[in-house]
């Protein structure tokens, strides 16, 4: 497809340049994600997950994740190429998550991206995972109004960001001061014996529960900052459940799930909407694995509609970690003429959110 266009006579080739075809590699946690994007068009989004290997440990084991990334890398790249109907020789650039994330896991993706870039003589972009969560939405909902506000919530991060230009400038407005939102879901699920990962199970059970049944605390809800905290909430849920158990009473699991989930999404959406108002921003974007939560999506819709804020939420498969988001950001960077990263690019487990692409 790409080569056919390039084979056209020169005037046409110059007049109609192909949008860049970018391979995106994501290995910051337990998903080996390989995406292929042409411009703003998603061609393939292949994911190999090691989540089942982590389930019996009750959380992601970094060494297990890193081993799985190594095994999955080349086969997943080929699954993506086959789906996209392109070959490695058609690619224009390689993008990879350089951080933040699990150091050993990131390193597998970064090393693979370097090898593909070196062997195929392609520019390499080591990108910020959080910026990629923002950029992915253009694949589904078109150009992103900038500036916009992004709330990224997962097992690894809970951040509120002001996005002035996703290829260059993002500023942190707030973050969790203790547990990430997804971590709180995992811990409460474990307490209730629901297994790992906790988010989907809590979401499912909450549908049959009463979200007003138990009044769990909303930490930091009323302070001036845009920070959030979930450690106290998790402890409050544990105390409530233990008190019932100690009294030999039945634990209403669905009500606990619904009430806990309500406390989390109440704080998250409350802070995000207030930040939009304070900053005079008309668009809120959600991303990260917790953005797949059905109650977070519906409450955000309701509150944004009431406040006159446009809400953008990628479909659940694009909210969780994936390679398409990295490819989407890579394609934006190529189009913006951003300088590629050097071949000695490090994997940076604590990469600063203000750095979109490693220099």
């Amino acid at each position, binding site marked *: 497809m790409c080569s056919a266009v390039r084979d056209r006579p020169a005037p046409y080739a110059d007049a109609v340049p192909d949008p860049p075809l970018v391979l995106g590699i994501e290995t910051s946690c337990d998903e080996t994600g390989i995406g292929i994007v042409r411009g703003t068009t998603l061609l393939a989004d292949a994911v190999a997950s090691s989540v089942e290997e982590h389930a*019996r*440990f*009750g*959380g992601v*084991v970094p*060494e*297990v994740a*890193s*081993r799985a*990334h*190594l095994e999955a*890398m*080349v086969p997943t*790249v*080929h699954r993506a190429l086959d789906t996209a109907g392109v070959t*490695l020789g058609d690619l224009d650039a390689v993008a990879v998550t350089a951080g933040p994330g699990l*150091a*050993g896991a990131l*390193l*597998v993706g*970064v*090393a*693979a991206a*370097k*090898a*593909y870039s*070196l*062997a*195929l003589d392609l520019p390499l972009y080591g990108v910020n995972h959080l910026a990629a969560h923002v950029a992915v939405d253009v694949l589904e909902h078109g150009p992103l109004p900038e500036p916009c506000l992004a709330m990224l919530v997962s097992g690894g991060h809970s951040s509120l960001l002001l996005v002035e230009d996703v290829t260059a400038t993002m500023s942190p407005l707030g973050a969790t001061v203790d547990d990430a939102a997804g971590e709180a879901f995992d*811990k409460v699920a*474990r*307490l209730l014996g629901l297994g790992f990962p906790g988010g989907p199970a809590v979401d499912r059970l909450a549908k049959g529960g009463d979200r007003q049944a138990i009044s769990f605390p909303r930490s930091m809800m009323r302070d001036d900052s845009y920070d959030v905290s979930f450690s106290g909430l998790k*402890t409050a849920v*544990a*105390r409530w459940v*233990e*008190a019932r158990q*100690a009294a030999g009473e039945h634990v209403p699991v669905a009500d606990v799930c619904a009430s806990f989930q309500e406390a989390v999404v109440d704080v998250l959406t409350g802070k995000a909407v207030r930040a939009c108002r304070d900053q005079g921003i008309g668009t809120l974007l959600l991303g990260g694995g917790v953005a797949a939560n059905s109650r977070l999506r519906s409450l955000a819709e309701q509150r944004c509609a009431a406040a006159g804020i446009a809400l953008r939420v990628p479909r659940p498969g694009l909210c969780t970690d994936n390679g398409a988001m990295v490819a989407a950001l890579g394609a934006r960077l190529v189009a913006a003429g951003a300088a590629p990263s050097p*071949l*000695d*690019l*490090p*994997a940076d487990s604590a990469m600063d959110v203000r750095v979109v692409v490693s220099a």
Partner: protein
Amino acid sequence: MLVLGLDTSSPAVSAALVDLDSGRSVAESVVVDGRRHGELLAVGVRAVLAGTGRGELRAVVVGLGPGPFTGLRVGLVTAAALADALDLPVYGVCSLDAMVPEELADPAPGVTVVADARRREVYWASYALGRCVEGPAVGRSGELADHLRSLTPPPVLVGAGALLYREAFGGLSVLDEPQHPRANRLVRLAAERIRSGEASDPLTPLYLRRPDAAPPGVPKRVTA
């Protein structure tokens, strides 16, 4: 016939381009820095490939370890992706094999290669007449020393692990070099398989240890 070799199983981040017809190393890059495999390897590969067309390469060879996991994986995924992108066969060789001295006194004694496995342990393998006869395995240096001293004649030791725990290996003779595997040696060890056009290896790392992880117990109570 040009072959690219890589090894990241030790602090020596090693890349080499070897001409299998002459047996000569065309280019070699070795940087000893056990914390920056990910930053150094691709740069080393680019350096040894400078001036050589990618199309002239015939195979990629990589050290499978054993070695510290994080660094080891950098070499393996790099080899796998390079071979994939260039459509080349890729072969794995036990990294310890590359430290067996090529020339030893005659009659040659047995050789035990000892690498640092951190956590006060060593990776090791024993060789006789150029073949691996025991290992690769991981264990405490003191226990390995007792085992090796019980052999007649005792083997000669080589590798950074033997130098690091020289005291534990007291009474056994330890060579000063080589300390780490080198990629050019790995390529020569795979020469026969490359020439005969064997199929690619699956590149399974020699971890020799399970991941550190235990299933969780009952959640801790927050109330007394």
